[in-house]
């Protein structure tokens, strides 16, 4: 029987889930809550959760604490991922306010789903048995399916939700099947026990089959090739703030469990899975970048770019070292700010629900709105990985981890594909700065929350590039056993 104190350590997760449920209830009572009120409540609850999280982290006097019968872990790694999820979700809320107003959709359920999904992500970051992880993953996934189809009057949104749901449910099934095979082989789902048990089960054919299926399910969630086919359609069809959120928070949380399971539970098998991940990483980088070259729809291009970035992050994963882990965390942080900034700018330019999506809509933006163009330029430079931005330091760190671990050939492909990515990222820059449009009316910057969020992301991107020290130190707090 776990004692009450252990539940106190779950305060951030409980708080966030409660806030989500309350929002759902109050939204349904009477005339419900307005868009701005709900957004305010959401941001406040995210901030409060962040405060509680900091407090919980502060009272921990060990670097690593297992609670609830070893199914829930509190460590530097989970702390970092949770902070990341909270920041990403809060920024997503700021990105959503005007978008929901223009689409004229009810807002409180939207924010409630966002909070519930975020609480699922917090559990993912701390889950320490395969089942805890799977259930929290489903919490996040179910809420995301609904969010992807939130614009119920839009056909593309419906299509996105349906595709996402069917393929997502499938991948969850595969994942669960992999878990059951591993359980069959090892007799446990708890990660540290699993790791012990697998040492003695080298010849068991269930083990490779189990982790391969598990890996396939996770690669679907992070959108790696060849499990990426849902990504472009969902990214284009989902409401743009949801797309942004899927691209960062969902991806980050999925990488968190990928790292947790493969580093801690399957660390002893690393020689086998490293090769597979190296191959997947290379295919993902090449395919994501090459496919992005020909996209004219900006959201579609960003979808392929997010696939490519999953490939880069896998470079850090495959290093299977402490440096690799830190580089992944740092990269996720930088990627979060950059991507939210990009999507924020896209949202600001979308005049109606889906307008403003092709590259041509960006023509002459430098004249119409120098501020937005400059922001977009910064984010594109960062996505390409050019200094002085967080994108550069992030990629630098990832490639460093790979070179150190002896995966130089993967790093070579990584740097070459990121040079290729320049072409399509700078296509937008080309339209913004190098082409003129007939349209000369300045784009107004209403929506202070949105503009504020974009500016914040831009500052964070620069800060991560110019003075990354403190952020690297934060990432360095996460130490996992098993790692050299």
């Amino acid at each position, binding site marked *: 029987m776990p004692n009450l104190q252990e539940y106190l350590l779950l305060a951030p997760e409980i708080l966030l889930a409660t806030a989500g449920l309350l929002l759902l209830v109050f939204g349904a009572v009477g005339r419900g809550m307005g868009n701005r009120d709900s957004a305010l409540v959401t941001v406040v609850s995210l901030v409060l959760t962040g405060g509680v999280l900091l407090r919980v982290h502060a009272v921990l006097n060990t670097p690593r604490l297992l609670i609830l019968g070893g199914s829930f872990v509190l460590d530097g790694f989970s702390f970092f991922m949770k902070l990341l999820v909270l920041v990403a979700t809060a920024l997503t809320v700021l990105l959503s306010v005007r978008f929901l107003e223009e689409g004229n959709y009810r807002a409180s359920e939207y924010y409630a789903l966002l909070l519930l999904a975020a609480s699922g992500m917090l559990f993912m970051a701390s889950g320490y048995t395969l089942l805890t992880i799977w259930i929290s993953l489903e919490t996040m996934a179910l809420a995301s399916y609904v969010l992807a189809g939130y614009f119920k009057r839009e056909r593309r949104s419906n299509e996105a939700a349906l595709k996402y749901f069917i393929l997502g449910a499938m991948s969850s099934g595969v994942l669960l099947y992999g878990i059951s095979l591993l359980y069959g082989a090892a007799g446990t789902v708890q990660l540290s026990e699993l790791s012990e048990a697998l040492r003695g089960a080298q010849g068991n054919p269930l083990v490779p089959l189990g982790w391969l299926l598990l890996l396939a399910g996770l690669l679907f969630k992070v959108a790696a090739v060849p499990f990426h086919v849902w990504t472009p359609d969902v990214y284009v069809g989902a409401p743009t703030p949801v797309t942004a959120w899927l691209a960062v928070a969902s991806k980050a949380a999925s990488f968190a469990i990928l790292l947790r399971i493969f580093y801690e539970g399957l660390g002893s098998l690393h020689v086998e899975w490293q090769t597979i991940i190296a191959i997947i990483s290379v295919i993902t980088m090449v395919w994501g970048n090459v496919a992005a070259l020909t996209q004219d729809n900006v959201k579609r291009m960003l979808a392929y770019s997010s696939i490519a970035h999953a490939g880069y992050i896998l470079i850090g994963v495959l290093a299977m070292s402490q440096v690799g882990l830190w580089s992944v965390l740092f990269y996720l942080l930088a990627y979060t700010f950059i991507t939210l900034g990009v999507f924020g700018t896209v949202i600001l330019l979308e005049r109606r629900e889906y307008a403003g999506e092709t590259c041509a809509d960006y023509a002459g933006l430098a004249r119409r709105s120098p501020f937005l163009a400059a922001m977009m330029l910064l984010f594109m*430079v960062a996505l390409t990985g*050019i200094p002085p931005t967080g994108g*550069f330091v992030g990629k*630098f760190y990832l490639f460093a981890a790979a*070179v150190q671990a002896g995966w*130089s050939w993967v790093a070579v492909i990584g740097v070459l594909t990121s040079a290729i990515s*320049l072409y399509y990222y*700078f296509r937008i820059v080309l339209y913004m700065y190098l082409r003129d449009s007939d349209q000369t009316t300045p784009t107004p910057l209403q929506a202070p929350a949105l503009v504020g969020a974009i500016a914040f992301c831009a500052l964070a991107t620069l800060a991560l590039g110019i003075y990354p020290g403190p952020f690297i*130190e934060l990432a360095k707090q996460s130490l996992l056993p098993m790692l050299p």
Partner: protein
Amino acid sequence: MHNVPILSIICYLPLVGALLIAFGMKSSQGALIRKVATGFVFVDFLLSLPLWFLFDRNGELFQFRESAPWIQSLGVRYEFGIDGIALLLVLLTTLLGVLAFLSSWTAVHDREKEYYIFLLLLQTGMLGVFMALDFFLFYVFWEVMLVPMYFLIGIWGGPRRLYAAIKFFLYTLVGSVLMLLGILALYFYNSSGLFGWKGLGNPASFSIPQFHQIGASIPPDLQFWIFLAFFVGFAIKVPMFPFHTWLPDAHVEAPTAGSVILAGVLLKMGTYGFVRFSLPILPHATLKALPWVAGLSLIGIIYGALVAMAQKDMKKLVAYSSVSHLGFVMLGMFALNGPGLNGSVLQMINHGLSTGALFLLVGVIYERRHTRAIADYGGISQVMPLYATVFLIITMSSIGLPTLNGFIGEFTILVGAFNRVWWWGVIAALGIVLGAAYMLWMYQRVFFGPLTNPDNRGLKDLNRREILYLAPLIILCFWIGLYPKPFLAVLEKPVNYVVAKVDPTYATAVAAAPIVPAATATPAAAAAGE
């Protein structure tokens, strides 16, 4: 005096100007913007002049050092400092900066605010590259510079500017990302080691002097890979044959100021990279690569000259002549001896001066007639006598006529090449002949003969602003040509240092029996003493 972070001030002053213009001025204030921008680079130039006088020729190798921790967890430091080579390149950058800005006053009217912002940012990037003594910091500046250059070509360039801009960017980016992997390999070898190679266990650092220290101890196979990674990055930037194809496109499409900076300074980054990194850090691989690099340089010299001869566009001709001239610089450098390296570095400066001047001159006539085709001209010397004179001086400097700067550079390079492998010198000398041919032939077609084209009758000669920005270049061309000693004196120590690092046997052999040409007066004997 030494407490003032003079290098940082010089490096970031243009950035301050860019920020001031970006946030403090409106696009409609074109006249004010160009004055302010030019003011900033001019003050920057004035600030860089004391470096020349304060630089202690007999002092430490790297001077005006600045050092502060930057990203401690990675061992990255903010480290600035210059040796004689960097000193000359910094001065060249600040000088050409002023001239390029002045030349833009009438050439650029469209989107002036952005233009000057990008030009200023470029200036900061270039200065940072030459000043950085931390490899990470160096790389940051190296890449930062690409973005403004992309815009300069892409917005204010010629008809095919979009293609040229992205081509320039992609080519140089591919080179530099590979270089990044080389940097990482060095970094890990110096500290914790990388897969398959046991590290030296030094504290994690990107310090360039530190890498110089460990250079000789890097195992040959690792040296080979790092050299290859660096080579691609630097060779594209130089550009060496066969990596040169971005250069003519970028040059032809870039606005005048862009071409001046591109030819004058940006191309020197590749050669600077070789002399600062490849040679001293990877001596073993350098010696191994010697025949290959020299071969490519020789091909570049001849090929560039031949292609230049066939050009109908003046700017393209100058662009291909750069391929040939940079071949000389590379050849001299890879002679790996005192005269060769001296000449190589000096020729970097010479090329910056004379090719910068040539682009400025082509810009002058392009502004008046909006064509650069050689066939559109003829007999210009009758209407523009002063212009013709200046052009002639610069042409002579470019083909290496004695009393002008090109002669000193090319001659010392040839001495170096002869010393290493005699027939390198023979082929390179052939390149000089070809160089004289295409330059003089162009000069003849443009300036002499009857004034057939009626459009050329009304051409106005150089105005005062144009004389103002051409005069310093001419003075410097004569100065280096007549009295190169101050420049060689600055180079002596760093050149000997590099020679001692890369080819210690040669350095000691020279110390025993100095083979020094009179023209350079290089006491290479001190080489071994470093």
